[in-house]
């Protein structure tokens, strides 16, 4: 592997991943609202329409149920569609197709059919888009057997997980947090596929485990930095594969640190964070020196004004406070 790096953004990394997939496999195409001529709501697919044409960069009408279902059908029919649902908020309109068709067909057909489909969606809050445009529903999708769920947070993962998802014979839901698109950084020029099977330890530490994913990763790393300044060595785990969850990595960390806090932008009740906490309870209870904490969003529809949105979402100070609470200091 080369060590030459290029400066790039998360958005560009996703775009490169899409191009790569389109180049590698004729069966791959991108379909969704305004992915083509408009260039994508978050400009992810900008330029691709000119490069690949209207068949492979396929604009759809406003019909989330229809085109998501069509993606499922096309996948069963031999294609490898990337369906873009503009944001997770609109995916509620396609949920029946995802839960009742994509997730079930393999099992209920006795293994005759499978659905090699990737559904990408932007998720999360932070852009003052208010109550109907700020959902974090990764945890919901993570509840459904038959689908896989991933949430790349780093440039490497944004660049590398899409291809693995497309190679997976089963439907994969891929979340891109809206606050990540503009993140800049260095990426090795020949960055390759990243498997969609496990969590990643983003920072090693022994005093406590901070477990997170997606949009909260960098807040959590910032919190770890702040804690380090105070002599607290936090380990930061990026779950990144939300279904199936990588229990081994989580438990290994907890067995070492004996304390954990989970950071998740979802509303607290019924969150993915709750699931991780329950699993630690089940698998590492005797290792715990303190209850596992959660830092989640306030249980309110996310409001428009910045100060209220900030208050509603997990912030670095909340993570630091929860970490201290877990450590009793």
């Amino acid at each position, binding site marked *: 592997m080369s060590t030459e790096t290029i400066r790039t953004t998360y958005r560009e990394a996703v775009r490169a991943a899409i191009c790569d997939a389109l180049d590698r496999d004729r069966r791959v195409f991108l379909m969704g609202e305004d992915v083509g001529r408009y260039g994508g709501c978050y400009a992810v697919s900008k330029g691709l329409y000119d490069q690949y044409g209207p068949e492979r960069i396929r604009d759809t009408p406003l019909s989330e149920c229809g085109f998501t*279902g069509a993606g499922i059908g096309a996948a069963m029919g031999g294609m490898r569609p990337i369906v873009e649902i503009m944001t997770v908020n609109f995916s509620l309109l396609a949920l029946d197709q995802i839960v009742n068709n994509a997730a079930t067909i393999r099992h209920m057909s006795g293994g005759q*059919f499978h659905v090699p489909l990737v559904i990408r969606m932007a998720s999360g809050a932070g852009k003052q888009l208010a109550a109907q445009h700020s959902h974090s529903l990764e945890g919901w999708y993570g509840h459904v057997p038959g689908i896989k769920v991933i949430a790349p947070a780093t440039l490497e993962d944004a660049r590398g997980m899409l291809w693995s998802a497309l190679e997976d014979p089963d439907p994969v839901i891929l979340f891109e947090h809206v606050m990540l698109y503009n993140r800049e950084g260095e990426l090795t020029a020949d960055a390759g596929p990243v498997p969609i099977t496990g969590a990643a330890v983003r920072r090693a530490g022994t005093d406590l485990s901070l477990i997170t994913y997606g949009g909260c990763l960098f807040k959590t790393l910032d919190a770890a930095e702040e804690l380090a300044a105070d002599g607290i060595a936090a380990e930061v785990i990026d779950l990144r594969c939300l279904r199936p969850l990588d229990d081994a990595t989580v438990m290994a960390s907890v067995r070492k640190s004996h304390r954990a806090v989970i950071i998740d932008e979802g509303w607290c009740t019924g969150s993915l964070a709750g699931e991780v906490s329950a699993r630690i309870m089940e698998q590492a209870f005797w290792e715990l020196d303190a209850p596992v904490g959660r830092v989640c969003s306030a249980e309110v529809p996310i409001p428009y004004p910045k100060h209220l949105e900030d208050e509603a979402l997990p912030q670095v100070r909340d993570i630091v406070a929860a970490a201290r609470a877990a450590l009793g200091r």
Partner: protein
Amino acid sequence: MSEPPSEYHVSTAAKPHFNRAHALHLLRQMLRIRSFEERCAELYTEEKIRGFLHLYSGEEAIAVGVMQALKPEDAVVATYREHGHALARGIAMDTLMAEMYGKREGVSRGRGGSMHVFDAERRFYGGNAIVGGGMPLAVGLALADKMQGHARVTACFFGEGAAAEGAFHESLNLAELWQLPVLFVCENNLYAMGTALARSESETDISRKAACYRIPAMALDGMDVIAIEAAAHAAVAEIRAGGGPRFLECRSYRFRAHSMFDAQLYRDKAEVEAWKKKCPLLRFRHWLEEAGILSMDETGRIEAEIDAELDAAIAFAEAGTWEPVADLARDVYTEDR
């Protein structure tokens, strides 16, 4: 029912070559379905079949007529009332019956039961228990065919009740917008469970609904297997020629209750009896007999053969095995195989 359909597209030229063997084939197929369904009703009472059971009796002409126009490489998307489609598509009666029982030898490994018949070999993409839920799938299958340059057609069956769902609307628009090879077949049996068409649709002429997506549409006598076959042939020819989707509304009736739990409070016995007089089997059989194509004896012989086939299917299902509980999680994901 409402006015005549807005657009007619059957070209008589496209009418299938009609001969005695074919006539007997059609009759046999319809009889097979009827017998299968009636036997399923009994088996349900005997608790051999469980869950929801929706029977196709009365609507046989639709599945049988339409399937004549399909080739093996074409695809079928059906509903939870799909035994008729499955049999007409060539799924063997024994594996179908084993599926009704939930046996491992069933066509979906027993996992699906009555509402989820799948068969990869025959490109039979299910049984779908969500009303309208199969329609976007059909659009996608057709999209895949078109993108891959296959001259294949996807036949998509659904009830008139499904026409009220958003999925219907979105699917028809996509299919026409992208000029996809879908044959939409609306099985208008006048009721969605207990809801009569006029209480679910402001426009009760479903074929006109299709026309407003600019999809050429046609309303047919759903009790006339020949008319349906002819229309399907014509429509499929146009679709295969790249003409985009077509829509057939087949006006029919279900002779039985919606499912085995339905007391049918919502319709008159007299109405049911009147429709039973229009039975597609009786009608076709009389016609064949009157035309001298079929003798009473032959009908008897065919029926006897079907009875034997059905007995064998039941024996097959009875002899079938239960999938071991250890395999419960198999096929949730591909890796689990």
